[in-house]
Every structure is written in structure tokens, then in C-alpha cells.
């Protein structure tokens, strides 16, 4: 196994060198052509670049060897017919022969999807930074914790609905297009300052570790649930995870706005 890993690592390193090359070229070109100054602490920066290539290579091997397989294995185990039937082999046999499995049978898969979405988002460093920034800019009207919890609930709810969609096999674009329409309506009523933050929160909060794990979960589910194709039904969970935080963040802002208004009225009277 070890030689395999080292060979993979070698391939990944040469691959990441190529992946990083465009950034180096872009920064180098603009530094020379437009800014025309020598980069300060050049030696330290070069060491940093080597670290980027090395770290990215190791990380990608880890993603491919560990994060993806874990997602797929969890999907396999949670949709295993014997597990679904509660270790009752007669029931499992009945499930195997039934052409249409009720979506409710996959209850534990929904719970798993919800917990993964909620916990990873709550711990996401990028979101913590953004939440404190939003707290400062709005002078405390938006609390950092409130924002983090609403984004986490959005991601969790989104992934759960996405899993339900994979189980039922209904077309992805119905959900997403409906989501867009609702989002535009909600934008109309939401406080103005929150809108850019809400729209960004969808893309920002799904980190490099969470995204492959959730993608693997979806692909694993679609290859296990009878009648689903991994290519057609397996993708889409990340789209749900990016869409739903926009709803919850705007909803959170609307609720806090209403509350502060009510407080002001109470204080006046």
C-alpha cells in the first residue's frame, strides 16, 4: 500500500505544480508589467510557494484516498437493505423485491446529511471570520452567533432536501429554479444591507473538505438507491447547500429587523 501512496503523491505533486503555475504566472506578470516593483521578502515568498505546492499535493491525495471513500462508504452503509430493514432479513428481502421504496425508509440518511451539513458549517473558519465582520459593520444588529447558526441551518436543510431529491429521483432543476424564484421574492422584502452578504454566504461557507464529502455522499447514494444513476442524480447536493443559506440569512435579518423595530416602538410608548 505504501509504494502506491508514494506514487500517488508523486503524481499529485507534479499535478499541483501545473495547477499552481497559472497563479504564479499571473502574479509575476502583473508585478513586472503593471506594478514594476520588486516583491519584498522574495525568499520568504518562494518558501511559501513551495509549501503551497507540497501541501496541496498531500491534501488532494488525502481527499481522494480518504474523504471521498468515507462519503461513499457512509452512503453504502446507510442505504444497505439489511440496515434499512433493521437487521430483519425477511424484511430486507421484501425491500429488495419491492419496485418502489418509500422515501421515509431512508430516515437515518436524512439525519446524517443534516448533521454533517450543520456541524461542518458551524466550525467553518471562513464563516466565523465573515460573521465577526458582519457583526462589526452592522454595529451588533447582526450577532455573529445568529449569523453562523442561520447559515448552518441553511446548509443542513439544503443538503437534507438534496438527499431527499436523490432518493425520490425528481429533476434537480425544478427545485433550483423554484428556489431562485422564491429567493428573488424574498430579496424584495429583506433589509438592503444584508443582501450581498446573504448572496455570498451560499458560496463561501462550503469548505474544501465539506464539498468533496457531500459530493461523495450524493454519488454514493445515487449508485445505491435502486433506479438512480450516479451521473444524473448523484450531483446537486452542493447546489442545495449553496442555495439554502441565502434564504436563512435573509430570514434571520428580517427577524432581527422586526425585533429591533418593535423594541424601538416599545421604548417610545
Amino acid at each position, binding site marked *: 500500500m505504501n509504494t502506491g501512496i508514494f506514487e500517488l503523491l508523486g503524481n499529485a505533486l507534479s499535478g499541483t505544480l501545473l495547477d499552481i503555475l497559472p497563479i504564479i504566472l499571473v502574479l509575476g506578470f502583473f508585478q513586472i508589467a503593471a506594478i514594476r516593483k520588486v516583491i519584498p521578502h522574495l525568499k520568504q515568498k518562494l518558501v511559501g510557494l513551495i509549501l503551497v505546492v507540497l501541501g496541496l499535493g498531500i491534501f488532494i491525495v*488525502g481527499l481522494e484516498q480518504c474523504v471521498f471513500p468515507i462519503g461513499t462508504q457512509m452512503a453504502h*452503509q446507510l442505504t444497505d437493505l439489511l440496515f434499512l430493514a433493521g437487521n430483519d432479513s425477511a424484511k430486507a428481502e421484501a425491500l429488495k423485491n419491492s419496485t418502489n421504496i418509500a422515501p421515509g425508509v431512508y430516515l437515518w440518511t436524512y439525519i446524517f446529511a443534516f448533521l454533517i451539513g450543520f456541524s461542518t458549517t458551524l466550525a467553518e473558519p471562513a464563516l466565523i471570520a465573515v460573521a465577526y465582520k458582519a457583526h462589526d459593520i452592522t454595529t451588533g444588529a447582526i450577532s455573529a452567533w445568529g449569523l453562523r447558526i442561520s447559515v448552518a441551518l441553511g446548509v443542513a436543510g439544503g443538503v437534507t432536501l438534496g438527499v431527499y431529491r436523490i432518493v425520490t429521483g425528481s429533476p434537480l432543476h425544478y427545485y433550483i429554479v423554484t428556489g431562485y424564484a422564491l429567493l428573488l421574492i424574498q430579496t424584495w422584502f429583506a433589509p438592503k444591507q444584508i443582501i450581498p452578504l446573504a*448572496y455570498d454566504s451560499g458560496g463561501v461557507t462550503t469548505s474544501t473538505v465539506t464539498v468533496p464529502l457531500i459530493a461523495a455522499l450524493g454519488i454514493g447514494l445515487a449508485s445505491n438507491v435502486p433506479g438512480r444513476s450516479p451521473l444524473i442524480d448523484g450531483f446537486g447536493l452542493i447546489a442545495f447547500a449553496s442555495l439554502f443559506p441565502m434564504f436563512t440569512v435573509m430570514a434571520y435579518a428580517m427577524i432581527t429587523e422586526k425585533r429591533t423595530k418593535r423594541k424601538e416602538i416599545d421604548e417610545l410608548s
Partner: protein
Amino acid sequence: MDVFPIIVVIVFFQLVIIQKPFPELGQTLFGIVLVVIGLFIFILGLESALFPIGEKMANEFALKGNLWWIIFFGFALGFSTTIAEPALTVIASKAGNLAAGAGAIANDKEAVASFVLGLRFTVAFSVGLAIAIGVVRIFKGWPLIWFIMGGYGLIVITTFFAPKEIIGIAYDSGGITTSTITVPLVTALGVGLATSIRGRNPMLDGFGLIALASLSPIVFVLGYGIFIYGVGGI
């Protein structure tokens, strides 16, 4: 840090709900070590080299105020950071293997590699384009919501012509691309621009580049699907 909750949830499910030993425990543990160490070294390198250079450059361009240079820089920055995104690399190759496995493209190494590279270039190009457009938007002070609505409109129209094999990947690509490398550098450019141009509010105008960068890959990957698989109907 962000790996910890994943481990907790998975261990809980494996032991309490599924009640079976971990399959391939050794390889998984080794993989977790690789992920944690790799991510640590990667971020250390980003913070000591790429981020300071990129952020400083973004600020200087914002101060210079030459629109054409900024547009060019925005495109180049969006393109190059997206090519390097690890999540995109891993998921694009998975998508290529799945497409080959399902018989949607030829099942040999070369066809898969060219599909994967095409996918990554499409996403990178569309992110670059989105940043370039977003930079012009900040310059002119046009409201973000027009672009979002226009983007949604384009997505809905393109979806009608797209084959169903690409729709899932396309909708996911928006969320995949805006990640570890792209977000800090692009946000620095946006906030720098909005701060240095008079009459712009960093909160209202600075954010929003990421929102555009998550929309345009969807349209272009749908287009890529039409190009590869032909027009599909719904």
C-alpha cells in the same frame, strides 16, 4: 479545525447507528492524517506567499484606477485561482470517471482526461469572466441584483437546452469553485476597489463578486454539456 466535526459525526454514526466496525480503518486514518497535514501546509503557504502578494496587488490596482488593467487583472486572477482549487480538481475527475462509466463519453484514459480538463477550463474561464464583469459593476456602481436576476434568467433558459447528464454537475460547479484560494483573493480585490472608489460602500459593493462567480460557471458548464453531449430536452 473544520475536519473535527466531520470525524465526530461519522464516528457517532458508524458506532451508534450502523453498529459495525469501520471498513478499511487503516487507510481511512492514514487519509485523515494526509488531509490534516496537507491542508495545514497548504494554508501556511497560502498565507505566507500567495495571499499577501495577491492582496497587495489587488489594492494597488484598485488605487491606480485604470479600468482596463483592472478588468484584465480580475479575469486573470479568477481564472488562475480556479484552476488551482483542490475541490474542483477532485470533483471534476470524479465527474469524468462517472461520465465514462455511464457511457456518456468514451471509456478510455485520454477521453476522460480531456473531458476533465475541458470542464476545469470552462469553470475557470467563467469565473474569470464573472470577476471581470463584477469589477466593471463595482466601477460603475450598477446594482448587484440586476446581474443576479440576469444570471438566474440565463441559467433557466440554458437548462431548457441542456442534456440531463450535465445539469447536476453544472449546478454544483458554482458552489465548488468558490473556495479556499479564490474567495480571499477575490474578496480582497472587491473590497479594495469599493474602498478606493469614492461613493462606494465596501459592504454593499465589495461583496457580490463571489455571488457572480458562483452563478456564471453554471451557465458555462451547461453550455459545455450541450457542446459535449448535444442539445437535450426536458
